[in-house]
């Protein structure tokens, strides 16, 4: 048949409509680019600081949170009794101007700042501080208690529990709060600076049912206080959480007790993909991004962005589980593993900028760091020799590593595994890699079931205390290491942790660290890797914190 002639008119109409649509969209784009600067013009002095975070917060009630993405906005809205000097892990006064500890280590007296007000206008006084401690201790219900992760860890338990450390809190006068503990706890005073222990307004908590954590089927929901009315004393007040766009808005608190925030508004924008965070930074739609991909840091610095490296306050280690393979109970075998690893090269090739080889399980800035621990310089010969002395030649080990995850101390687990496994193979240890999704079996297999011989894992410190590092890993028998027989190690750490006098505590932990390296070696420390923040050039005054505890009140924007 003959092909019917030219296309019908209606198709030309369709194409024409398409062109018109494209032009309309183009015009919309112009409109968009006009609005970009609209916000800033009205407030040349303050402006809006947009920070791209990496995940959704859970809620804004400090005590029910344990993750950095929730703590980021919480930290701007609340204060803690004790806080850290900006950019360090050293303590300084927060809501408490000063604090003292009695010789037993059990009674803490806080001298509070005067004239501090919560965002709802009520006064921050000793009664309010004690109301917070009482609230935590007396929290009812499994649902609520199970979400108080830091509290359970630091304070041991709740009302009625024999392990609870809290005894009582008394308001001696309006500005003096006296906290009495049942026993000394090494975590203090550092743990008073934990964001989870921020002081919230008792009036607002009561008004908005803060303690009501309800359960529905498989999950919990939090109160209006936690979601819509977080009320602290911090430099910013809550402006709203738009979940559809992933934006948390914070407004400058004009009545802040300390130096007031320099910007008028902070928007924390949730962008989970690190590549997208980078692109938004380049597009100029955000002024700062957290956790850039290690590989992007240099490029961004070259392009003129400010790469702010946090002082390293974390540790990546190669865990050794002594339970499944009896050979791993032999110290010489574990030492052979340590000698086999070429850690300097790993740091150089896979470590984020600023990473350093770790020779112990805590960073240099933490009390109890011992400069003179056994170092295990890379030596394949020594590794082979120790293996043959121990009768462990031809050793075969499985090696668990996580996938679908990137942690500040472990940005690229798979690559780290590959390098470490090659090193071990070179020393004659056969390695079977077992990849497991982070939330899909890795943590279960490693920490609950102990299926692994070797694994990689790490930790970011919460506060400046050696117990928070070595105590967490090796202070008690853990499935992860299968070192139940190493009672000497548990005792030594327990004793060091219970030492009240700071100098004696330092000495005790230095010895613990020497012994961990030379005598026990339950794991091999790999590196300390500082995570970074990248900002545009016009962002001033953002101080990177080793604890990833940046405060935005010091941030200002230049034109």
């Amino acid at each position, binding site marked *: 048949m003959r*092909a019917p002639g030219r296309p019908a008119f209606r198709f030309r109409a369709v194409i024409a409509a398409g062109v018109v649509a494209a032009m309309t969209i183009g015009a919309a784009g112009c409109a968009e680019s006009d609005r970009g600067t609209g916000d800033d013009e009205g407030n040349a002095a303050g402006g809006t600081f947009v920070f791209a975070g990496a995940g959704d917060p859970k809620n804004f009630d400090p005590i029910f949170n344990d993750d950095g993405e929730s703590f980021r906005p919480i930290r701007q809205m609340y204060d803690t009794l004790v806080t850290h000097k900006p950019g360090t892990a050293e303590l300084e006064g927060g809501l408490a101007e000063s604090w003292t500890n009695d010789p037993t280590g059990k009674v803490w007296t806080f001298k509070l700042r005067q004239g501090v007000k919560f965002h709802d206008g009520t006064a921050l006084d000793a009664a309010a501080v004690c109301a917070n401690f009482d609230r935590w201790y007396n929290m009812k219900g499994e649902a609520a208690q199970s979400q108080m992760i830091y509290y359970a860890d630091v304070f041991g338990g709740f009302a009625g529990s024999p392990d609870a450390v809290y005894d009582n809190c008394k308001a001696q006068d309006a500005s003096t709060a006296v906290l009495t503990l049942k026993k000394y706890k090494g975590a203090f005073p550092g743990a008073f600076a934990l964001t989870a222990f921020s002081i919230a307004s008792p009036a607002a908590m009561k008004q908005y049912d803060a303690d009501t954590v309800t359960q529905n089927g*498989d999950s919990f929901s939090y109160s209006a206080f936690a979601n819509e009315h977080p009320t602290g004393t911090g430099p910013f007040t809550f402006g709203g959480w738009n979940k559809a766009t992933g934006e948390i808005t914070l407004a400058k608190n004009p009545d802040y007790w300390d130096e007031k925030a320099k910007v008028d508004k902070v928007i924390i924008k949730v962008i989970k993909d690190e590549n997208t965070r980078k692109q*938004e930074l380049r597009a100029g739609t955000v002024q700062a991004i957290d956790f850039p991909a290690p590989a992007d840091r240099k490029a961004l610095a070259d392009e003129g962005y400010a790469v702010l490296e946090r002082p390293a306050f974390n540790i990546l280690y190669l865990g050794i589980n002594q339970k499944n393979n009896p050979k791993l109970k032999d110290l010489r075998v574990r030492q052979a593993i340590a000698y086999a690893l070429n850690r300097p090269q790993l740091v150089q090739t896979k470590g984020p900028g600023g990473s350093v080889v770790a020779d112990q399980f805590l960073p240099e800035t933490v009390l109890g760091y011992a400069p003179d621990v056994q170092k295990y310089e890379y030596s394949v010969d020594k590794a082979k020799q120790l293996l043959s002395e121990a009768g462990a030649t031809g050793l075969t080990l499985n090696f668990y590593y996580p996938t679908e995850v990137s942690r500040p101390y472990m940005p690229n687990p798979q690559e780290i595994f590959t390098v470490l496994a090659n090193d071990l193979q070179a020393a004659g240890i056969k390695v079977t890699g077992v990849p497991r999704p982070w939330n899909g079996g890795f943590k279960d297999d490693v920490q609950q079931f102990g299926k692994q011989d070797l694994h990689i894992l790490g930790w970011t410190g919460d506060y400046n205390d050696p117990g928070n590092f070595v105590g967490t890993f090796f202070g008690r028998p853990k499935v992860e290491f299968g070192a139940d027989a190493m009672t000497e190690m548990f005792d030594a750490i327990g004793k060091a942790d219970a030492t009240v006098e700071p100098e004696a505590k330092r000495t005790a932990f230095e010895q613990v660290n020497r012994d961990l390296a030379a005598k026990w070696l339950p794991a091999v420390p790999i590196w300390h890797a500082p995570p970074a923040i990248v900002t545009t050039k016009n962002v001033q005054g953002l101080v990177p914190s080793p604890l990833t505890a940046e405060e935005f009140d010091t941030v200002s924007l230049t034109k």
Partner: protein
Amino acid sequence: MVRVVSRRLVQLGVTLIALMTLVFFWLRSLPGGPVDALLGERATPQTRELLIQALGYDQPIWVQYGRFLKNVVTGNFGNSIRTGEPVTDVISRAFPATVELAVAAIIIAVGLGIPLGYLAARHRGRLLDNATIIVTLIGISIPIFFLGYLLKDWLTQDIHFFPPSGRISTGTDNTDVTGFFVLDGLLTREFDASADALWHLVLPAVTLATIPLAIIVRITRASVLDVLDEDYVRTADAKGLRDATIRKRHVLRNAMLPVVTTVGLQTGALLAGAVLTEKVYNWGGLGTLITDSISGGRDYPVLQALILLAAVVFIVVNLLVDLSYAVIDPRVRVQ
């Protein structure tokens, strides 16, 4: 017609219950679970126990299943494990985002695909036809992920033309009425917000549209070619009908049947494409929700509801497609 629809609805119900059961056990047989994801690295073993009890994971699986079925039947999907909000809230927030994206993609795919396919068929064997075949082949085979990043890199980084991600500019104080940002802007007369949302929509919609577009072009082309060879077209031509009438009444109408089926199937498949597109563009719709609910810690209630929703969408779209046959081709009886 009514009987057909009601029978389909009963089928829908049975399918859904079977599907839910499958999903319930399948999700729980996966390694890992919400407990670890919720607790992070710092939890003590006691806290872990508390949580397991609070969530009821210490009870036998059939007790959990019974509770789950009861909840589903009464329309209670529970709360998201990650966020603590009712699942219906979480989904109704993400749903408009994906629908907005999918509708835009379908408009592009159908609006360009059918005319292009038709044109290619009419120019069979000529340059336009060959070009279309090659381009659509690329369109079908290019992974969304790759295309998304490519477009994004080029149009948001090399040239700062489009915004790299999100549905609307950060800090836009738009009023949320329906959750469809473009529509909301029109309803509330915040036209700049509407335009901004539309501008954000371009790249993701184009990315998502490529595969369905390519498929629709090819199906349309093939279908039109088939019809052009039919006797009735030749007869119509021979009896001297006007070209436009032949094209409209005989060619296009008859060629549309397979195209409509394809459009229906592609609409369902868009959901899968949306997972990738939304990841690339930080879109915050159902696709994002699915990824978050799986990798962010086995958010069972959300996952269950999402799979249910996907099934309903798929089944309803297919039902609509079947019904539309009757409209397009009177010879088809819906039975």
